């Protein structure tokens, strides 16, 4: 059964997708975003897959990150930003002023460009997330800490120094710690904003491996300007250019038969 909000979405698209065995989780309808007087996002129409990696690809400064931040309403931090349109997620319009944004953000795990461990120890960082979920029992916390650190493939490296400050980890480890922290809130969606841009190739590889694992359980939205990364990871590709979506589709299709001239050029230069 669809909720009233979902009925506003193009039923035909959903039925077509579901007939192919595809399920979508986030529906962006006619999204326009203004930063002061300039328009940063123009008429964005986008469906984000449930389970799978949706890659937002495009050159720097084309609005990918901004689009990502509207999904968990971090755009609220910037008073100059105004939005029009709607983003439907689990029967609610995310852009509705009256929704519980704190509950929304707990369904969206964020992995930012640079890791930002919160002040405290490695274990503290996971605990911060568990506390939000109301888990205060010490043994349960310890068990879950291990569970999530394993899920982010960092447990083996930190199990003997959980009481050390998180800031002492290498930047690649910090990023995986932040991934573990993001998973600890049991999100529905993982928002990854160029999560490997500050990392060395080995750490990047580890993060990519984790994302490939996580796509089986979560809906992942990955922002990247790296064409190769998009090719390696994408289940669905969205090419953005100066605030507009120029091309979107399955990677097998869009990478082999690009229709848009600018996207074609981007693909050629990227090689």
């Amino acid at each position: 059964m669809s909720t009233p909000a979902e009925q506003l979405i193009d039923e035909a698209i959903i039925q077509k997708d579901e007939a192919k065995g595809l399920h979508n989780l986030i529906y962006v309808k006619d999204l326009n975003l203004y930063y002061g007087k300039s328009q940063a996002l123009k008429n964005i129409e986008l469906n984000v897959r449930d389970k799978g990696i949706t890659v937002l690809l495009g050159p720097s400064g084309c609005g990918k990150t901004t689009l990502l931040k509207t999904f968990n309403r971090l755009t609220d931090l910037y008073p100059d930003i105004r939005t029009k349109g709607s983003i439907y997620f689990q029967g609610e319009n995310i852009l509705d002023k009256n929704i519980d944004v704190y509950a929304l953000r707990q369904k969206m795990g964020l992995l930012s460009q640079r890791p930002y461990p919160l002040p405290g120890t490695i274990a503290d960082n996971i605990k911060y997330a568990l506390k939000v979920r109301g888990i205060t029992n010490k043994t349960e916390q310890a068990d879950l800490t291990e569970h999530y650190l394993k899920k982010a493939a960092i447990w083996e490296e930190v199990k003997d120094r959980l009481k050390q400050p998180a800031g002492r980890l290498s930047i690649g480890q910090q990023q995986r710690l932040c991934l573990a922290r993001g998973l600890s809130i049991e999100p529905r969606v993982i928002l990854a904003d160029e999560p490997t841009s500050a990392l060395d190739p080995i750490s990047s590889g580890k993060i990519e491996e984790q994302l490939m694992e996580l796509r089986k359980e979560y809906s992942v939205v990955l922002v990247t300007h790296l064409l190769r990364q998009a090719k390696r990871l994408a289940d669905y590709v969205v090419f953005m250019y100066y605030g507009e979506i120029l091309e979107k589709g399955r990677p097998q299709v869009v990478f082999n038969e690009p229709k848009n001239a600018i996207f074609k050029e981007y693909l050629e230069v990227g090689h």
Partner: protein
Amino acid sequence: MKKKYLEEKIAKGILGALTAIIVLALFSLLGTIVWKGAPSISWEILSQVPKGGYYFGKEGGILNAIVGSAYLAIGAAILAVLISLPVALYMHTHLPCHPRFLEKIRLMLDVLWGVPPIVYGAFGFNLMLLVGWQSSLLAAIITVALLISPIMIRALDESLKHVNVGLTEAALSLGYFRGEIGYKFLLRQTMPGVATAFLLALGKGIGDTASVLFTAGYTDYIPESLAEPAATLPLAVFFQLSSPIPEVKGRAYAAALVLTVIILVISISSRLISRHLSKNRIQ
């Protein structure tokens, strides 16, 4: 071409001379205080209250002012922290969404910073009369706390500005409320700033004369409760320096020396503490 070299030389000379004047002024000031204060400094001066009245008595020391100043400055700094910390955190958790309002608050705080201390003194005095108190340690603590709060808020504000917005975003995206982020994360991240702001305010509070002139009163004794008047070091200098009796004058210089040393210690330790704490900070 030669003209340019000459200009450069003259400009360098002027700048150097001005710098030398400032440094010279500072050292001659410190020198005078040490020169005149050092001979009077003795264990008796530091450990005794004045005997026979602070203005005429030749015996005794300035312990009343040392203890009074310590009580006053520490009390005022603690009270100011209690006021300033919530304000500064509020400015950085809820107010960033209202940048114009935030800028106005900063402007007002800067104006308050520039208000002469005597005005705070007069304000405190009127407040005192309004509630029917007499000159007392508590009245002085409240007045000085009001005086140093704007300084403290702005110092905390500046140090919170350096906390990366990524940290706030990380905490928000876990589902934390903005207020929680303030005292759970921003505060811990900005601990060096808090220490520096506290000591900065302490130094300003201990050295200020005009704001306590009406409010603290003056006494030869060490205050035993908040309702009693208290002597302070700046007023010990002010009242005793005009005395015709050389011993009393000597006490004034001794008080000035003690005050200068205390402020020097506070400012140096504030630098050391902030440097030490910054090392353990993330980023």
